[in-house]
Each structure stands twice: as C-alpha cells, then as structure tokens.
C-alpha cells in the first residue's frame, strides 16, 4: 500500500510545475494551461485524502473544482480571444496598458 504522503508529494510537485509554468511563460494560452495543471494537482490530493480518510466529501469538492475549472477556462479563453481581436497579442510583455 502506497502511503498518503506519497500522493500529497506528487500533487505538490505537479502544483510546483504549474506555478513555475504560470510565472515563466510568455504565452497566455500556456499560462491558462498551467492553471489547469495546478487545479488538477489539488484534485489529486483531494481524491487521495478522500480515499485514505474513507470520506466521500473530498470527491464532492473535486466536482466543484472541475466545475469552476471549466468556467474559468471558458471565460479565460473568451478574454484571450477579445484581447487578440483588440491588440493581436498573446504575449504578456506586449500587454503594457497598466504600466505607469
């Protein structure tokens, strides 16, 4: 039997890779995919907790996270499409309107 800590460790590593991808990439599409990666890492840890603590509440939370992830992807990509229509840019360093 694999101990619970291994699953949490795996989830932490995937979360870290997601954070790194969000921080270091220029492309907004890849940044959105990194957010999906982070949400999936949290889902893995919730399902592992649910299995090892013998409680289904963790898996119910996974449902809600998947719902929010779907909504976030739809809205994020819609923002991306309208940004591309206005500026023809999908790189973070070309979007400098808020810079003082």
């Amino acid at each position: 039997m694999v101990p619970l800590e291994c699953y949490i460790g795996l989830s932490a590593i995937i979360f870290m890779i997601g954070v790194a991808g969000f921080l270091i990439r220029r492309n907004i599409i890849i940044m959105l995919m990194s957010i999906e990666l982070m949400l999936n890492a949290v889902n893995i840890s919730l399902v592992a907790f649910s299995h090892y603590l013998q409680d289904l509440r963790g898996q119910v939370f996974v449902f809600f996270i998947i719902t929010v992830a779907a909504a976030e992807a739809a809205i994020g990509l819609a923002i991306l499409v309208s940004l591309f229509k206005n500026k023809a840019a999908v790189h973070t360093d070309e979007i400098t309107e808020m810079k003082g």
Partner: protein
Amino acid sequence: MLPVIFFIYFAVAMTALSILIITRKNPVHSVLWMLAMFFHIAALYLFLNAEFLAAVQLILYAGAILVLFLFVIMMLNLREELSIERFIDEWPIGVALAVSILLLIYFTLAKFVQGPLGQYSIEAVKSETHTKALGKVLYTDYLFPFEIASLVLLIAIVGAIVLAKKRS
C-alpha cells in the same frame, strides 16, 4: 509490491508530462501532452477507487476543456510563436518561487496528523456502488453548493458569449 511499481510509474510519468507541458514551444504540442497527462490522472483516480471521477475527468477535461483550448489556438493562428523566446527574462526568479512553495508544502506535510476515519470505507462504497454513494452525498449534504455551481456555469456561458461576440 505491484501498487508501488504502478505508483512510481505514475509519479515519474506525470512529473515528466507536466514539465513537457510547460516547456514546449508550440502550444498544440502542449495541449497534446496535457491530453496524456489527463489520461494519467484519470488512471490515478481509478487507482484510488474513484471510478466516477475518472470518467468525469476524461469526459470533461480531455473531451471539453482541451477541445476548447485547441479551438482557440486554431482561431488565433500563432505563427510568430515558433520564432519568439518562450520564457520571460526573469525565469530563474519564477522557478525559485515555485520551488519555495514546494518546500513550504513539504515542511507542512511533515507535521501532518491523520484525522479520524469517515464512514465510507472501501467495502461500504463497493456495496453501494461509487456513483450512487457520491450522488447521495452530493444531493443531500451539498445541495446548496451544487446549486451555486450551476449558477457559476450559467455566468460562464453568458460571460463567454458577451466577451467573444462582435462589437456592434
């Protein structure tokens, strides 16, 4: 012994796939590696006796969200992507921040104390079937959050249409 071998395979493969996702130059390649990643996550859910969630993971993530990503990449036609530098100039700072978050989680994990077990043991879930047990919890204890989730989806539908439509 066999579960340990399976887990080691999944850990190594998922770490490698995540690194591939965030480092590929072409976004289409990233999406395809993400597809492989989602299949591995679904298999890990099966491994943790969450078969309904494994099916939802494949249908919703691999079937819906990734297709959405592919459609947007197709619409935007990112030819210049292949010639531009893919990481920002300050990338070591980003990696250092991510590693510090990982260390923080590991130090927290050392203090982890397992709580009391719940009532849904593997045998109890097996006798009731997983989908039925999950549905019971979702539609009784979590009915109100479930309704709020439907509202979140409605806002996402309306918001996506409003943001992406042509200005008149």
